[in-house]
């Protein structure tokens, strides 16, 4: 009997406690910090190579915290996460080459610059030479369906176009693992469906990648996930195949 392939993402007892600086009231009570908030506790799971794992949970369940720790943008208070074979906490350049955090946050691009110009800038941050960056940006803009709008300023882009540009940016370095935070949030139903199919079939499966998708949308999760993890109050409360999510969520 052959052994299963090694997990691309291994999460062991991950915990995160936020401790914000105290307010004036806290300080008057002799406390320098506000009351600690436990965002994640004892979270452990694995994601196999090529798998798409979706993380669901109510607002404040810890999804964004989890994905930021896996992306190396946030340090855990406890536990450890290995993504693509590297410690997420170390946050090395090699880690950031292998793992792309695709944030759909509209504010993460420069509004006065074109989609192409934005990609050129981020390609430089990946260390790509100008000629390589131009080629790679053109190729990705074509792939995400933005070739015709590549030279329009980002501020003129629709929400769907902005999401597509964020995906193109995530693919600049040809990562092995994609971390997607609500990739179709705010899109119209058709735009959301098209983007999900593109992500699942072309970007993740077509590219032989592994992905974690945080989402609260059952339609999205059913369309994309191989497996669903449920977070409640910062703890992993269950796991199910995508056709069982209504039962798990009690819908």
């Amino acid at each position: 009997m052959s052994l299963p392939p090694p997990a691309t993402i291994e999460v062991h007892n991950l915990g995160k406690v936020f401790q914000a600086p105290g307010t004036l009231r806290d300080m008057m009570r002799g406390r320098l910090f506000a009351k600690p908030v436990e965002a994640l506790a004892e979270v452990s799971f694995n994601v196999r190579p090529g798998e798409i794992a979706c993380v669901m949970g109510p607002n404040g369940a810890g999804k964004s915290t989890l994905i930021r720790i896996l992306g190396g943008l946030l340090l855990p208070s406890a536990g450890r996460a290995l993504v693509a074979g590297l410690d997420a906490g170390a946050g090395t350049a090699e880690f950031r080459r292998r793992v792309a955090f695709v944030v759909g946050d509209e504010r993460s691009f420069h509004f006065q610059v074109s989609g192409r110009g934005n990609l050129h800038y981020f390609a430089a941050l990946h260390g790509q030479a100008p000629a390589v960056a131009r080629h790679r940006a053109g190729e990705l803009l074509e792939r995400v369906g933005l070739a015709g709008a590549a030279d329009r300023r980002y501020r003129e882009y629709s929400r769907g176009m902005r999401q597509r540009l964020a995906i193109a940016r995530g693919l600049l370095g040809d990562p092995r693992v994609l971390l997607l935070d609500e990739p179709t949030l705010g899109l119209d139903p058709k735009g959301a469906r098209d983007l999900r199919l593109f992500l699942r079939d072309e970007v993740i499966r077509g590219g032989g990648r592994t992905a974690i998708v945080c989402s609260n949308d059952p339609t999205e999760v059913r369309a994309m996930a191989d497996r669903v993890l449920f977070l409640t109050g910062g703890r992993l409360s269950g796991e199910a195949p995508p056709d069982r999510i209504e039962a798990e969520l009690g819908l």
Partner: protein
Amino acid sequence: MSAAVASPLWFGRVLLAFVRRELAAVGGYRTAFVIRLLGFGLAVGSLLFLSRFIGAVVNPHLAAFGGNYLGFVVIGILGTEFQQVGVSVLAQRIRLAQVMGTLEAEIATPAPPWMVLGAPPVYEVVISALRSSGYLLGAKLLLGLDLSRINWASLGLAVPLIIAAFAGLGLLAAGTTMLVRRLNPVAMVIGSLSFFVSGVMYPVTVLPGWLRAVGALLPLTHALAALRGALLIGASPGQIQGSLLALLIFAGVLAPLGVAMFGFALRRARIDGSLSHY
């Protein structure tokens, strides 16, 4: 081809891409660009009338600067601007990137943080140097500023030390801004205090002794003394060695302190998740 390790070549690519992006964005901020140009013209014009007004008076405090108030004040303003750029630009850049939301996306790339955040200060220092040259040229051509006695050796020694000292202050300010997530408190304090006691508009010799002592603790005081010596009276490195030594000490203390502070602030941001907070 991608650069595998953080190298000057990689930084050069980031810098080039940053400059291109800035130039592309200028078209979107035409009004701000025109206002900035207008401000430059008004500043040069105001110097004309200030020098006519004050330059006519024989002032013993200006004797050490060849009695040249125009040169004195032009260099005071240039030095202040350099300090402003050094102390503020990195903090402003971080604050803006936090507010815009670009910082997290940039930090998520393979480029090390110093590279992500280093391009804007380098660009701004170059722009500031060009603007300063414009001021000096404008003052020479329009106002008759005498720059015939420049000591290039002194200038060549002073400028890198000034940049290093101001960069150290800038890193301290940027770290503080990341920690407090407010506008730059270090720049505000240093800027106001320096303008008052570093001899920007008037020689420090007019200040009482205790204020002069406060001024000696600020790098701008020594930067202005070195620049005025090199540019106005052709002072040799030996003649301005006190100022150069003070700048060397500031650079030696502030630069490593700034790097440590900034590293600490960046780590704090990864602990409290404030890379995209505003």
